[in-house]
């Protein structure tokens, strides 16, 4: 099969599947090497950038997913009812970012940083499949360790955990504080 035909098949598979699909799965169906699948997918995602295309090819870890182009959101959203699902609260986002950056992390560590108990929030994040238990700490009490899920990457549009925004304080403010700091 030539590359154009392979790309056409991959596009059909991704469209039909909808959810993020593992690159190995695609290779298996087409009976080709992962490296070739990877090359094809990379070329395809380049091609989707063209102005006359309405889809984009998104990568999350080893998974790929077709989504509609964000520039067209306004028009696409005309079709939909407003989202009734409540977005994540600030408190939930705080706990989630602690888990994302410090994983694997115990609930105690989250509590300590936030200064409040996070039981309820951790549970709701679990319910939304954004975090999961990824093991137990080999310490007394064997507390469970939390980490983020694949769905977390998809939800925030991150290609991998390495693409999390850098963990830094607002530089401008710090500089102000350091230069403006005076002794009491």
């Amino acid at each position, binding site marked *: 099969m030539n590359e154009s035909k392979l790309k056409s098949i991959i596009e059909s598979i991704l469209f039909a599947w909808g959810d993020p699909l593992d690159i190995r799965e695609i290779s298996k169906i087409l009976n080709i090497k992962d490296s070739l699948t990877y090359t094809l997918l990379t070329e395809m995602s380049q091609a989707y950038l063209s102005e006359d295309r309405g889809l*984009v090819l998104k990568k999350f870890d080893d998974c790929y997913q077709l989504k509609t182009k*964000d520039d067209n*959101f306004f028009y696409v959203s005309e079709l939909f009812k407003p989202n009734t699902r409540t977005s994540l609260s600030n408190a939930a986002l705080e706990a989630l970012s602690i888990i994302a*950056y410090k994983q694997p992390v115990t609930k105690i560590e989250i509590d300590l940083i936030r*200064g409040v108990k996070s039981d309820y929030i951790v549970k709701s994040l679990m319910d939304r499949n954004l975090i999961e238990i990824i093991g137990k700490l080999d310490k007394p009490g064997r507390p469970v360790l939390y980490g983020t899920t694949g769905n977390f990457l998809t939800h925030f*549009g991150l290609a991998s955990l390495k693409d999390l*925004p850098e963990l830094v304080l607002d530089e401008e403010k710090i500089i102000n504080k350091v230069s403006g700091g005076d002794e009491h």
Partner: protein
Amino acid sequence: MEYIVHISKFHGPFELLFYLIEANEVDIYDIPISEIADQYLSYVDLLTGFDMEITSEFILMASTLLEIKSKMLLPQRENQEDPRAFLVNQLVEYKLYREAASRLKEQEALEARFISKPAEEIEYDGTVNEQLLFGEISAYDLLYTIKKLLKNRAIPIKEETTYVIEKDEYTVADCIHLINEKLEKLKKLNIIEIFSVNQSKKFMIVVFLSLLEMSKLRNLKLIQDRVFGEIFIHKA
């Protein structure tokens, strides 16, 4: 006019402390502890009337602030660590993740503009060669499939926990009556004879219970002349 602060919007002592630091436009690395502690305490006072559950954490912070304040009043020795250092480190770490959270929020909003569709439950015409289709599928395949499906369900199906309790076919009272009748005719009876009236397991259990009961009530004697020998019933 009474001024009401919606304290519940602060999810924890750090958030409240941050609000105060930002509202006062003070340096996080050089917090005027005295002022901030006073303001913090007045908020906690307000809070106390509402929700004791939440306030324990706020009160802990209040006492920490007061401790630092009192330490600040003492003459400082040289090379002594700033009493605020520990709190500031905690605050900075919290702030770090707070800002990360707000960036995640932006990221979330950006990503929401890309729309995906859920996986289709695609069915295609599989009836073309039914003979062939079912030829290779055994009942075990079906069982395996349904188990897999059930396992994948988010909410597990509740197993059937009700069952019908049938009325006893034989009662101990009936059986005692039966044994007595037999004993009336024959003074001595082989235990096997009674058990062989009905081969059902339920019957045997009831006979056994009846014999025990009657023996307890001294209505009969159980006699066995040697070990593992046959057991006979005698009328008492």
